[in-house]
């Protein structure tokens, strides 16, 4: 018999271990592949959606009349690169967008990713304009003439002007934030899967220690043994990884289907990218992880996790990680801190649990309680890796739940504040907004004076009084400062900031600007608004999640006459009848036949939908990670108990009724799992803080409120209870199986201390 057969024959005697290792490789491959695909799919989809809905230039008629096919012909004859964009509502399918592929050619920019409509028109959702025109009805369809970026820089032809064209609110940065968190989640999942793989491998190796030692005594040297183990694991990986990758892709496609639907809901079109075809990356990654997890420290695998560590070293590492996380100036430093804290926490948790239960065991006089506590210590030592993986998974679930819930709440609240008014009406270029404002002010019976304001957006520069360089910022001017804004959540504020703002006694800044310029309430800013130089104190800092730019909020009364407004609108809360009257009057005042009136509630609903779905996905993936960690733990427990069961049965041999013995084992398993939960909670809270208070500010300039949701801890405790009871059930099953007495009390036969 060759050494290879002698070594591999172990699994013939212990098929459960082989099945456990194979199942772990398969599930780990599936989980990580799922996360990887989901992340790349989400990234592709969001990029496509951003490109599709990104603000572009459109050509509109000076006289305010809608553009027609004749306008398209006119503009093309003048050599302008314009593309017709005909939106046609299709019942049950959202909207079709008809475009002219020939005209789209002049939109191609060398070196840039083509726009989503460039390339083959497959009807998802872009179709040839003739097809869209065939389904169009006069009232419901809308023709837009998009202008290429190059032509948009030149003056428009006579009778036309350019204006922005966008089909959805800009949520790109929130999407980026989600993707960054998903990336971080993927790395943690990979860490958890490698821990699980190594734990299964080490258990098998520990139980093959005698065979390995025997082969070594027979002259098979260590490098040969390592090679044999490498071959064995590669063979196993080859058999298990591909089905795992396939399963992961299937899983991600099922989950991501909802994501795609949400994007479609938001953007009214099919934009979901679907799965990429990169099988090789997850496959190679898993092979590398398996080889690393199974071969790292093979020669010294006999030592358990707890015997070779220096607790003081890891305590220092933990302190260092926590310190770096407080101070980290960049994301790289922050990720390093996360790695240090997880490494140290993973190492220290089993040591801490074992230390505490041993201390308790020493200090109890009851031999039965002492036995239970000592059994917990043995389980912690033997199952250290899957328990640490479970600890990480619990922490991850807690952190992701807190992040997602905070995100949902904050985003919902923020959208609610920003879209407080029922409607907003775009002010056409060149229209006299003063006349409209005067008219509205004179009609309190139509629209309450507290329920409308004008919004003027433009650019300015700000400089701190301490003399830093001026920085360009966006201007968000309000007039009057209506009640529609006064419920905004403010991060820092003076006593009555909105009243002071209305009186023109200061300005407000968004969080991004405050963080970058290190501004606090009361700091004085020098703002250049066109030709006007204004010095004013900061009255408040408001959160602003949708975009990266710094912004100042000023009363419209402070804007100079020559202020170049990029965008003007009116936000109005009124009933449907009232808004119709307002719309008609403003159209008359501005001599335009068609006004852009948007229903803010609809925008809000659409914007919320996509994030609800992405949050659901994130939760689903973390829950799957937890399930995998729990399943791995149960597998390991089963394998371990198959050798330990004899000693549990001693209780029955000594006359303890089966039910009582099972209760004792249930106490052992619950103590074990709740100890892990206790270690996971602080890690999860810390990870939550890292995600909402550190990663987001460093990556995007804004933070989310820190909340830990203790109510969810109860849910986690219930999950832990289920895992603990499952372990207890396995123990009961082992108790019932006929067990033959081991030939010796050797540790390899379950008799370890």
């Amino acid at each position, binding site marked *: 018999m060759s050494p290879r057969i002698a070594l591999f024959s172990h699994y013939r005697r212990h098929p459960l271990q082989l099945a456990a290792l194979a199942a772990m490789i398969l599930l780990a491959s599936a989980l990580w592949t799922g996360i990887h695909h989901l992340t790349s799919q989400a990234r592709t989809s969001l990029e496509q959606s951003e490109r599709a809905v990104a603000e572009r230039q459109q050509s509109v008629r000076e006289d305010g009349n809608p553009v027609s096919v004749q306008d398209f012909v006119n503009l093309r004859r003048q050599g302008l690169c314009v593309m017709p964009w005909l939106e046609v509502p299709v019942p049950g399918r959202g909207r079709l967008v008809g475009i002219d592929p020939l005209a789209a050619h002049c939109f191609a920019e060398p070196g840039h990713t083509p726009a989503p409509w460039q390339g083959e028109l497959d009807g998802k959702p872009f179709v040839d304009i003739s097809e869209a025109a065939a389904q169009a009805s006069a009232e419901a369809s809308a023709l837009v003439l998009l202008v290429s970026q190059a032509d948009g820089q030149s003056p428009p032809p006579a009778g036309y002007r350019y204006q922005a064209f966008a089909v959805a609110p800009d949520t790109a940065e929130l999407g980026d934030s989600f993707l960054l968190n998903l990336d971080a989640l993927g790395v943690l999942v990979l860490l958890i899967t490698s821990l699980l793989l190594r734990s299964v491998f080490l258990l098998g190796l520990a139980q093959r220690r005698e065979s390995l030692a025997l082969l070594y005594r027979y002259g098979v040297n260590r490098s040969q043994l390592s090679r044999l183990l490498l071959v064995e694991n590669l063979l196993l990986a080859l058999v298990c990884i591909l089905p795992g990758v396939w399963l992961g892709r299937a899983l991600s496609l099922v989950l991501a289907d909802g994501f795609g639907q949400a994007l479609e809901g938001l953007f009214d079109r099919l934009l979901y990218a679907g799965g990429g075809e990169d099988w090789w990356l997850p496959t190679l990654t898993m092979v590398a992880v398996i080889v690393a997890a199974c071969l790292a420290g093979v020669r010294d695998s006999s030592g358990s996790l707890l015997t070779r560590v220096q607790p003081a070293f890891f305590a220092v590492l933990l302190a260092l990680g926590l310190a770096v996380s407080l101070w980290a100036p960049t994301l790289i430093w922050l990720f390093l801190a996360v790695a240090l804290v997880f490494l140290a926490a993973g190492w220290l948790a089993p040591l801490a649990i074992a230390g505490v239960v041993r201390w308790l065991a020493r200090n109890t006089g*009851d*031999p*039965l309680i*002492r*036995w239970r506590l*000592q*059994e917990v*210590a*043995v389980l912690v030592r033997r199952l250290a890796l899957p328990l640490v993986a479970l600890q990480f998974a619990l922490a991850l679930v807690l952190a992701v739940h807190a992040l997602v819930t905070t995100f949902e709440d904050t985003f919902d609240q923020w959208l609610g504040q920003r879209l407080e008014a029922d409607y907003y009406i775009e002010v056409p270029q060149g229209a006299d907004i003063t006349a409209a404002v005067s008219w509205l002010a004179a009609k309190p019976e139509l629209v309450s004076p507290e329920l409308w304001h004008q919004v003027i957006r433009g650019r300015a520069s700000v400089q701190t009084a301490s003399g830093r360089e001026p920085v360009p910022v966006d201007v968000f001017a309000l007039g009057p400062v209506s009640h529609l804004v006064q419920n905004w959540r403010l991060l820092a504020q003076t006593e009555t900031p909105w009243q002071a703002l209305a009186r023109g006694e200061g300005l407000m800044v968004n969080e991004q600007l405050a963080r970058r310029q290190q501004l606090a309430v009361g700091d004085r800013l020098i703002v250049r608004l066109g030709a006007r130089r204004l010095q004013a104190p900061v009255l408040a800092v408001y959160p602003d999640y949708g975009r990266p730019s710094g912004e100042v909020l000023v009363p419209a009364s402070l804007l100079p006459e020559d202020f170049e407004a990029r965008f003007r609108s009116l936000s109005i809360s009124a009933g449907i009848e009232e808004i119709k009257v307002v719309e008609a009057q403003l159209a008359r005042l501005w001599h335009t036949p068609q006004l852009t009136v948007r229903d803010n509630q609809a925008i809000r609903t659409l914007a919320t939908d996509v994030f609800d779905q992405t949050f659901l996905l994130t939760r689903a993936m973390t829950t799957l990670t937890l399930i995998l960690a729990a399943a791995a733990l149960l597998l390991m427990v089963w394998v371990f108990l198959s050798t330990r069961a*004899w*000693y549990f*049965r*001693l*209780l*029955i*041999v*000594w*006359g*303890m*009724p*089966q039910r009582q013995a099972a209760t004792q084992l249930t106490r052992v398993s619950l103590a074990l799992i709740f100890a892990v939960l206790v270690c996971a909670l602080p890690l999860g809270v810390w990870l939550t803080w890292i995600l909402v208070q550190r990663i987001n500010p460093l990556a995007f300039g804004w933070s989310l409120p820190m909340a830990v949701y203790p109510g969810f801890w109860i849910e986690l405790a219930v999950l832990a209870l289920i895992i603990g009871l499952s372990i207890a059930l396995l123990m009961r099953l082992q108790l019932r199986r*006929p067990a*033959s*007495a*081991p*030939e*010796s*009390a050797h*540790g390899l*036969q379950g*008799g*370890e*201390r």
Partner: protein
Amino acid sequence: MADNLISVTGLSKQFESGDQHVTVLRELSVHLGRGESLALTGPSGSGKSTLLNVLCGLESPGSGRLAMLGQPLAGDGAPTGKALERTWCELRQSRLGVVFQDANLMPTLSLLDNIRLRARLAGRDDTSAGDWLQRLGIGELGQRYPDQVSGGQRQRAALAMVFVTRPALILADEPTGSLDRRTAETVADELFELQARHGCGLVLATHDADLAARCLHQLDLGHQGGP
């Protein structure tokens, strides 16, 4: 009858192995009185351990009648279900002492704590645990764990665990099987001495003919097994 520690009549036991029924014990009858000892001999697989497991209630008898310490446990008049389990538990707690070849001790408890735990489960005073270790010559090892002492010392501790419960009957399955000859003799001496001193019964499964010869009765199970 009350003096009969063991009364087995027409006991048969079968196991299923694949699609075959393997008979391990066939129409066996065994009787043992107070203070008597019985050696079960026979080759491996002849059913020695199975019979011991049946006698301590860890395996159910297939058919036949069984009474232990005067209590019917299989056959006519025997309780069933939970009542049967309760009766076996009560017997094992304080009337039956079981010794295996090794692995008689909880590995996570010291020798002393093992004996204390056993005494507690039997409802006995556990303060005598140290005395029993002293009596068996391992008093100084009380705080050691099973893996920190020799096989012989472990078996002595196992004997201490049995006698701390003051059993009426000891069931020993190859109690010296993993020991060297000299240690085996010492442990066997102690077992027989204690059994004689306390007047309890002893059923001993062994391959060792010399050890078997020290028992009052011998039962060769060599002819028992077969499909």
